[in-house]
């Protein structure tokens, strides 16, 4: 009995003396890693760096399948549906951009680039600020620093091409509780300064990054080629009329630097290039890869025709269809092209068939039927609400080995290609043509793309003027790079958006009468509209408010 009382007292006393530790609220969280853990462990630190290729979900209708990377990438509504390439059938905040209703409070799907990019830049700066404290060889630190500078430059590239002048924050790591009243913190640099900064970062990155992927430098991480490719794209933008902040020669030289690496070449099969999960093509310079454990949205059901139980998401426009040449190398409006408006889909550039599903196209063992009455992929087919308003469906990127129905555990593994060699050739051709005119190297660059084995289009005719060559290169970009997030920026930097984006969004209505079809163009989305101010996106209202009104809005908004 006595001993029991003693034990009870001892427990009581012990609890009195131990229960009031002062830091009992400072627990180490078990569901996330602390700063100290990341900096104290070289493996965790490297994982932190690699994760900077990804971003956070910022808005509704984004990151539906996986974390966002750079740009928009694989989402239900592709970035191409903000252009004359396609419209997104069920809107998802894309129509207001097509219709010129963008405003700082209504940014649609284009509202998250600002916030996500600056968040990433700060995270990169955090790693750069602390890398000295990490226990790691200096040579590996140099690699990671080069990689971080590449990622940071990519974020600035995303900012510059959408907003123009950006706020350069250098290596600063802003912390909560700091004084943010200084207007200099929100001052936007000129486009020239912004691009020069990013290019200088990329020069340093190109020096420090490895040339090739390896067991220790996995696919998906930046290489010298990726840094030089990004640099050439930025310099191409800089030389373009909208930016007017660089020279065509600098852009041509930068593209030539990538070509002179002699590491990249065109993939022979245009359609296959976009599908292989492994992406082991010599054409791919920098891409984001997916696998069974980390998939993006299931593209086949998202975009497939309603007759196949697809949802008809991003539906190509007639505006794009008309750009594809005949396979004799003539445009559809050329008098001798042989184009027949009442039989429009025969003998076209093979990339047309790889990119667009049209009435009569063989798809998964049956022809696509967009005609009325009765076509299975028209509004007379099943799930009529999933019918394309344009009469076309997307074919590019679609992997026929994926099921359309119930794809949830298998589909969504195509890589998103940020840079591929064809773009570099087109950057070179465009910049060289502007700098010195259509010399032999310009012809060679474009003809290399056109003579890719699976495409095999005739070479460009000799003796073109600079203006004729310019028009053909622009057409080649539109065709070759369709749906790869180029058109939106191209029509802006060329300052032709006030024309191209004010053309109605056309589709094609097919009426079947016996064995014959009648083709009638129709407007697929009402109210397409573009104004001068839309050359740049509006900075979201919330960002302006967060700066206390110090951040300057783009003109016109």
């Amino acid at each position, binding site marked *: 009995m006595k001993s029991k009382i003693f034990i009870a007292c001892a427990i009581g006393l012990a609890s009195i003396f131990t229960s009031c530790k002062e830091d009992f609220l400072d627990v180490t969280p078990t569901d996330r890693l602390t700063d100290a853990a990341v900096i104290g462990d070289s493996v965790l630190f490297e994982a932190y760096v690699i994760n900077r290729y990804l971003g956070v979900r910022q808005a509704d209708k984004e990151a539906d399948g996986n974390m966002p990377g750079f740009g928009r990438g694989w989402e239900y509504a592709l970035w191409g549906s903000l252009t004359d390439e396609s419209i997104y059938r*069920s*809107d998802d*905040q894309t*129509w*207001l951009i097509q*219709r*010129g*209703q*963008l*405003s*700082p*409070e*209504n940014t649609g799907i284009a509202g998250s680039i600002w916030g996500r990019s600056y968040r990433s830049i700060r995270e990169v700066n955090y790693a750069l600020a602390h890398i000295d404290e990490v226990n790691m060889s200096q040579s590996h630190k140099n690699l990671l620093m080069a990689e971080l500078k590449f990622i940071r430059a990519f974020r600035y590239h995303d900012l510059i091409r959408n907003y123009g002048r950006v706020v350069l924050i250098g290596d600063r790591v802003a912390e909560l509780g700091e004084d943010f009243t200084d207007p200099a913190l929100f001052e936007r640099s000129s486009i020239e300064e912004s691009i020069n900064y990013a290019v200088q970062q990329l020069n340093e990155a190109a020096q420090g990054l490895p040339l090739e992927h390896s067991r220790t430098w996995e696919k998906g991480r930046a290489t010298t080629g990726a840094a030089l490719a990004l640099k050439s794209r930025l310099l191409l933008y800089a030389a373009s009329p909208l930016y007017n902040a660089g020279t065509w020669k600098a852009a041509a030289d930068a593209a030539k630097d990538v070509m002179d690496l002699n590491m990249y070449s065109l993939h022979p099969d245009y359609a296959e290039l976009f599908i292989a999960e492994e992406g082991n093509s010599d054409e791919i310079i920098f891409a984001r890869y997916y696998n069974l454990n980390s998939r993006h949205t299931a593209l086949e059901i998202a975009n497939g025709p309603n007759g196949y139980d697809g949802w008809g998401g991003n539906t190509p426009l007639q505006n794009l269809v008309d750009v594809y040449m005949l396979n004799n190398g003539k445009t559809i409006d050329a008098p001798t092209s042989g184009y027949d408006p009442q039989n429009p889909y025969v003998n076209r550039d093979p990339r047309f068939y790889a990119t667009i599903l049209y009435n009569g196209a063989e798809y998964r063992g049956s022809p696509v039927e967009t005609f009325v009455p009765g076509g299975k992929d028209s509004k007379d087919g099943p799930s009529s*609400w999933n019918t394309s308003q344009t009469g076309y469906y997307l074919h590019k990127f679609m992997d026929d080995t994926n099921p359309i129905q119930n794809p949830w555990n298998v589909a969504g593994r195509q890589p998103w290609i940020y840079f591929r060699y064809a773009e570099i050739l087109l950057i070179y051709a465009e910049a060289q043509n502007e700098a010195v005119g259509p010399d032999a190297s310009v012809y060679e660059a474009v003809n290399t793309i056109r003579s890719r084995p699976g495409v095999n289009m005739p070479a460009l005719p000799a003796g073109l003027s600079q203006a004729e060559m310019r028009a053909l290169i622009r057409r080649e970009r539109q065709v070759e790079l369709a749906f790869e997030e180029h058109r939106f920026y191209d029509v802006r930097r060329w300052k032709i958006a006030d024309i191209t984006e004010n053309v109605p969004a056309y589709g094609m209505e097919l009426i079947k009468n016996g064995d014959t079809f009648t083709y009638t163009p129709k407007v697929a*989305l*009402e*109210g397409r*509209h573009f104004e001068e101010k839309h050359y740049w996106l509006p900075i979201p*209202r919330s960002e302006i408010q967060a700066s206390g009104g110090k951040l300057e809005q783009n003109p016109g908004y």
Partner: protein
Amino acid sequence: MNTYLLYQNIGIFRTQEDLNNYPQAPGTRLGDLIYRDVNEDGAITADDRVRTELGNIPQIMYGVNLGATYKSFDLSVLFQGQGRVSQYVLPDVGTSGNFFSSWADNRWSPSNPAGSYPRVETRSGSAVSGGLYQNDFWLYNTAFLRLKNAEIGYSLPSGLLSKIKIENVRLYANGFNLLTFTKVKDFDPETSSSNAQFYPQQRIINLGVNVKF
């Protein structure tokens, strides 16, 4: 609590003159709503939104339970209601769903220029008069008084029943959601869905017999 930040509509653009006289949101056409330019800067921006007085959490909720018996009859009634409450409801319609008939029948159109509802768009969520500029046209006063439950019963005389060894027999009829007094015509005022996607409450009528041995 749960109040809304909305543009204030002051009518419908019916003439070219209206379009000339009022600032308008981009993409506005005849038949769209006119929004009040609250800060009078000549443009419709997010600064023109106004906090609503009421939200969709009612400031008043009440109920009355009444009961009566007379001879062999019994009656119980439950009234329920709410007051000082608003609900924003913009039905998700167009190619993706169905319109309320009151909107479809009374929509502005070139052939119905006096329509009391704005013109219809391919999708209401993408419309200037809809989801792009959330506004108080779609704010409904969802105050209501509802006969939630009523029951009437009649017990058979016990003298008769005791002969066949039954203690009590009661015939009754009851009903749920029998009557609703509200200004809302298109949907159940008890909803809290802002796109009108919800399953409405059912009206249920039961007839029954209680037998006690």
